């Protein structure tokens, strides 16, 4: 595996003092962490601790008011519109991917992919080449090929939606991927495909921030670090043992430290 590498300007993804409010309610008080290329950070936390908010806020969801700082390869992430973050290499796998009626999956993915390529000055991928890649990716992930010709996520089962997210992850090849409960809805074959995909992409240098509750998956992912989010801060940072401890004792039993862990 390619070892964690810092970019010349610092870590690949750096989050400092991130504060997130929604409708005058503070969800995240101050979150600090960083991830380098090829690393995988797991974020655990009780329901409502702000895990999804963290992912959505970094992706630029307009619902949130965000303060603090976050950079992607030295670029000010929070200053960018949503699509610029995506084009800079930030991918968010949605916990509940929405439907887009009437827009065929393969057309949507190809249009988005070409939009990203254009922003990098790369030539468009033609429909034939794209379809070949998409079919091959779908097969690897256990997503029926027919799903490519159907409207985005419309009528998809929970597992199919997650496989479709993984298909986009594999085709976009982002620098940093935020995966919000990607395993929910996936069967054992899906989880195996997920683990293989992530391992392969880490080899290529993609960094991952994975939100998950499930120790079995976390162990298979071989995380670089495990973070526990509590009351809007990173309350603990550790290795796989932290995930095992949380799983055996539960979040309620975990002691909440008085102050956030800086530089997790």
């Amino acid at each position: 595996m390619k070892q964690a590498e810092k970019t010349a300007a610092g870590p690949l993804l750096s989050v400092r003092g991130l504060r997130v409010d929604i409708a005058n309610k503070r969800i995240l008080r101050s979150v600090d962490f960083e991830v380098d290329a090829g690393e995988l950070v797991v974020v655990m936390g009780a329901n409502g601790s702000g895990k999804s908010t963290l992912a959505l806020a970094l992706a630029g969801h307009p619902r949130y008011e965000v303060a603090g700082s976050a950079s992607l390869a030295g670029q000010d992430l929070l200053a960018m519109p949503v699509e610029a973050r995506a084009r800079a290499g930030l991918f968010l796998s949605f916990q509940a991917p929405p439907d887009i009626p009437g827009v065929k999956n393969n057309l949507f993915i190809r249009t988005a992919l070409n939009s990203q390529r254009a922003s990098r000055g790369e030539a468009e991928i033609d429909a034939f080449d794209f379809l070949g890649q998409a079919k091959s990716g779908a097969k690897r992930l256990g997503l029926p090929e027919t799903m490519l010709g159907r409207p985005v996520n419309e009528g998809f089962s929970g597992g199919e939606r997650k496989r479709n997210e993984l298909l986009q992850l594999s085709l976009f090849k982002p620098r940093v991927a935020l995966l919000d409960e990607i395993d929910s809805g996936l069967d054992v074959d899906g989880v195996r495909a997920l683990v293989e995909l992530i391992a392969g992409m880490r080899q290529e240098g993609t960094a991952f921030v994975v939100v998950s509750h499930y120790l079995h998956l976390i162990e298979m992912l071989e995380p670089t670090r495990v973070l526990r989010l509590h009351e809007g801060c990173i309350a603990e940072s550790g290795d796989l043992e932290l995930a095992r401890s949380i799983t055996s004792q539960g979040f309620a039993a975990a002691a909440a430290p008085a102050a956030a862990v800086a530089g997790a």
Partner: protein
Amino acid sequence: MNTARAETLAARAQLLEQGGWEFRRLEAFRFVPPPAAAVWLGDEPCGSCDASPLAGAGWTLHPVGAAGLVDARWLDASDSTQRAALFAGLPLPGDDAVAPFAWAHRALCRQGLRLRVAAAADAEAPPLMLQLRHLPRETVEAPLLVVELEPGARCVIVETHERDAVGCSRDLVQNLQIHLRLGQGARLQHWRQVEPAAGDRIAHHLDLRLGAGAHYAQALLAVGSAYHLQRTQVQFDGEDATAQLGSVLLADAQQLDQQVRMIHGASRSTSTARALALARGKALVASDQYAHVRPGVENADIHQHLAGIPTGGAPRLVMRPQLEIENDAVQAAHGTTWGRLPEESIFFARQRGLDEATALSLILHGMAAAELERGLGDEALCETVGARQALEAALTRLLSAAPAAAPATEASHG
């Protein structure tokens, strides 16, 4: 005076005798009242202008007499014999809300097309496809189309309304009546594309009667104009008949009024009416969908769904589903959504790298295309008849153009 001329004058007299043109009092026309009767009768004063007169061909049909299954007759309403043949079997205007339009039509109608479609000998053969283009012949006109599908006939009609590309700068007034009759077990898929010029005032009335087991599917793309009415009335005469309509209504500073009437007069009849209205600027769009289940009609199944989305400016969108049910054994579902852009889908698309305008356009195109596909009930057919391409062009115009100025209340020509 020949009979045709006498009937024309009688129709004018009937229009006046029946109270004239008091649409503002009618609930269905409350939001988008039509222009005065004089407009539809060609009595409106016409200022002098240099615009070339319209010289369209009226209805053109391709292919004519396809495979011997189609009997097509273009009939001159000013000739007594042909007029009798043209209006044969059609109901006289009654006392319903749109009777004034029907009398005005009878007073002005000069030409019509009657089609009779027979069933193919091979029941497995693909349905017959008929291309019906309409090019206005006059600046004020009342064309007529009558289509009869014999029992078991299967047909696709591609109905488009175009303007003569040469020298046509006049505003059009068009009072179109279409009568569709589907015999037992007949199936008709109907693509309708109606994109009038901004100053045009048009009213299209579709009157459908469905025999037992007949199936009618319609996808409509309509854009706003100075006045634009699309009114469809479906009468379920036979049991187990089904009708489905999917409409996309687009308006930029103009008016568009859609009225759908589903009259369930036979048991186990099924109707589905869906409409998506996208409007911007100071547009006014109304969609009024009414379904009536008559006493004694068992197990009718009704679905109505209306959605209105402003895409910019401050348009007015009036979405009204209505049910009148006179039997307990009915399944009915209706709903309306107004004003909500699919924010999560837009964020999702932007997160994949699409800029906001592209994401919005892609999603609205998708929603609109889905409505047309639901209407025709056949995704591939939507491609074949050009529905997707027409939608693409019309919606791109709506989303990319600067908001248009509201049209003048008086047209400058015609």
